[in-house]
């Protein structure tokens, strides 16, 4: 009896695993140490530069149309003089059970063999479903085709598509860098080494708070860091199984209850 239950549970679970992959090639994971993050915003600038994020201006920022794929949330607790300020960088969490993937009617967003939640711009028809389903508010919509006044367009990264009006976009874990590293490793007939792939945010971080790597590689830094007792995931109770792992901040009045 128990065997049948387990089988049914496994089958159901396998359908809950996007892409129905039995095994992933990589399990890209980011670890964010909140005790090291000082909220400076360098990662956000790195993301703007790497991923051709348009600047929308004051008016559109006011309509929540700013493009930052990665934002730093800031929370303020308490009254003067006992004020506690906390920062947390929030990017696409690359959920293994992503709500956005279930919603998309045209499969523009799906899970790939690397454990990444990817967005296919060519398929996207802009129904906005994924952004509505997203638990973390990390999806950004191109309400217009944005222009870069000359010669600012010379800065655009040729490795990343410039998106057009009507397309949803979000953090890709700098998939262009992952692809480049995988190609190079393939040319050299080896696997991707730990530390070879660095998304722009992790690369630029002045405090080294962001670490990126393959969780399936037992020797990788992230594989070692996920055993940290400070580990937690954002809104984990919603069962989205995010690939971004946060390490709790150490604070004087820190509470430990879950």
């Amino acid at each position, binding site marked *: 009896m128990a065997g049948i239950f387990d089988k049914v549970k496994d089958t159901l679970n396998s359908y809950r695993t996007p892409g129905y992959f039995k095994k992933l090639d990589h399990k890209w994971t980011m670890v964010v140490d909140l005790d090291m993050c000082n909220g400076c915003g360098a990662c956000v600038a*790195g993301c703007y530069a790497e991923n051709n994020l348009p600047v929308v201006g004051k008016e559109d920022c006011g309509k929540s149309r700013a493009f930052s794929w990665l934002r730093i949330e800031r929370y303020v607790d308490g009254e003067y003089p006992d004020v506690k300020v906390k920062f*947390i960088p929030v990017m696409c969490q690359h959920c293994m059970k992503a709500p956005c993937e279930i919603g998309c009617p045209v499969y523009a967003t799906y899970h790939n063999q690397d454990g990444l939640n990817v967005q296919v711009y060519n398929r996207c028809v802009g129904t906005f479903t994924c952004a509505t389903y997203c638990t973390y508010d990390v999806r950004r919509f191109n309400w217009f085709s944005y222009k870069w006044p000359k010669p600012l367009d010379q*800065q655009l990264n040729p490795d990343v598509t410039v998106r057009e009006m009507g397309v949803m976009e979000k953090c890709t874990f700098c998939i262009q860098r992952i692809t480049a590293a995988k190609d190079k490793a393939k040319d050299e007939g080896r696997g991707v080494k730990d530390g070879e792939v660095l998304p722009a945010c992790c690369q630029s971080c*002045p405090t080294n708070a962001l670490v990126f790597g393959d969780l399936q590689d037992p020797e990788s830094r992230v594989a070692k860091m996920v055993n940290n007792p*400070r580990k937690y995931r954002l809104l984990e109770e919603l069962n989205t199984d995010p690939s971004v792992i946060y390490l709790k901040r150490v604070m004087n009045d820190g509470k430990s209850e879950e």
Partner: protein
Amino acid sequence: MKRREFLRILGIGGAGTGLGFVLGKVTQTPGAKLIPYLVPPEEIVPGVANWYASMCAECNSGCGIIVRVMEGRAKKIEGNPGHPVSKGGLCVRGQASVQRLYNPDRIKGPLKRRGQRGSGDYAEVTWDEAAAELAKNLSDLRKSGEAGKFYLLTSQLHGHLNQLAANFMSGYGSPNHIQYELFQNRNLLYANQASMGLNTIPHYNIEHTKYLLSFGADFGSTWLSPVNFSKGYGRMRQGEGARGKLVQVEPRISVTGANADEWVPARPGTEAILALGIAYAMVEKGYNRAGDASAWRAALSAYRPKEVAAITDVKEERIFEIAKEFAQTRPSLAIGGEGLSSYENGASGLVAVNVLNHLAGNLGVKGGVLPNPDDPLRAAVDMNKRITALASAAASSKVKALAIYNTNPVFTTPKAAKLEESLKNIPFIVSFSSFMDETTALADLILPANTPLEDWGDGFAEPAAGAPVYTIMQPAVSPVFDTKSLGDILLSLAKSMPGNMGPKLQAQSFAEYVRNGWKELYSKNRAMASGTADFDDFWDKTLQNGGWWSQEPSRRGLSVSTGAASANISNKPAKFDGDEKQFPLYLITYAHPMRLDGRGANLPWLQEIPDPMTSVVWGSWVEINPKTAESLGIKEGDTVSIESPSGRISAHAYLFPGIRPDTVALPLGQGQVYGRYAKDRGENPIGVLPLVENPKTGALALNSTRVKVSVASPTGRMVKMEGSTKELGRGIVKTVSPEEFSKMKKEA
């Protein structure tokens, strides 16, 4: 392959010229534009990036950078992983400097004034015409024996560009090279000289300290060398050994203060007294590790914690607690930032911080204050050369010609300096600025200089790493517009002047000048020569690595004597302009994490990326404590007027509990008139400041006035990206207590 090796292979330098030079050669001939790619330059493979090692010039910290260049265009700037200052990281401003290079508002070629001064009516001229006009004006002045009436006004210059400017001025015969920036560390230089005999800024070894007592130092975003300190901060928190503690003393929580374990909101202007109170508590309890306790007790007798507590609004017990922890945690470190040095008596506060470090035995130890080697070019800031000196000379018509480069004093000096009016008295003003700004708008002639990504240069980073760091700046791309290197402009100007300008200005180009300068350094320094065949070999390696640095620490001993301390400290709180009744609130102005003193305001990323503390974008605001706001009837987002005895501006109110109820704070940098991204972003906070400068150093006191705040008629709208400042029980940023953390660490 490691990143460093990757760099070595891809970094150019083999020919010692850089891709920019090659591209410059091939693109300058008309009609040749299509041909080169039939036989592409050796370095260019379409789709494959070249990385050039260079130096960031967005602030004075001298971070090593690598620039990703594809098909001759700069794509992205990252920290140079091998560089001892940046260690692979780079701040917001450094990354945005690529938008300075490709800014649509750059001046595209030489301009000559056609209409009235300040009307903005300029005619395009050629470089030859502009250079001839400049040479004529300057040689006429020199011929009439008035060479001393020529002033050169620049930002803080570094390395060989600074040396070249000095050589040019001495060859020309004028002693008047004024280097001016709002945040120039003049007080810090003075305080270290006066109390420790140091000519350079030391390295504050945050990385290894276990107790960091910061007096208004926003080292995570703006102070001295933010990337290097942030790298250190990360290691301090989660590096080897116990987790370091950060205590931040400041009236308003800065980005760094937001990360502190303890916030000590001392009354504005009394932080220096608090530091000395802590010092007294240390000697009274016998905690001090250096210095004669009885001598120091006598020297600090005016700073008994009981009296200090009354002045500073910090409880006596807390002063003793901090003193105990500061002295007994090993190693500890005290630092004093802009928040401390921006008072009228700022230099004395910084001396007080040195006293703390001396008494706790933090000078010259790992995790404390490490001396830096001297600048190999012996450059030093002349404290007597001030922007106010220029203003008064110009007002009395003692200035006949002025050249401006990379600084915008009309925007950053208070109205009382009457700088704009005085500058209008000068018959001839030339600007080398690449952007139109409030100061360049007065120029008769504009010869736009290259931006740092198109230019040669170098820097001998001061807050460095406690060891020599020589960083090279090389062109990553050829000039985007019709601009020239300032070094080249000065060298060719020197050649076109009649009469001898001296032997030091003979180089054909600034690139050659820098190379010759490094050759001289190389010949004098045996450490540079080790491991290299000859200078050419060394130079190639230097261009690949982004400079030269060694691990050799400076061995200079540091100490503070009671005499040096007593001569520089005072038990009077910093003075604030304005009557307490009429103007009830202290005003704190601070360098903005993105726009600093305003230089970043026209870079669109730096407007669109939210301010870390308030999340406001594309605007200016005033931070007010919610209780104060309530008593004044101010709601979030209201337009309020901020009035001081010196002026009045308006800004939007941002209610922030992390500021003292008797204080309001304004970020600097907004309120500019020029630039499509910078203009119409509120008003310049400098407009309410009185002209108060430190008599010894010439540093402008930014925290020097009281204000009153009242609701004004609404203008515009404040846009902020935050939804709520509360987590609303969602447990988004989870925390553990330090005790629990040390238990976790033991178990692991």
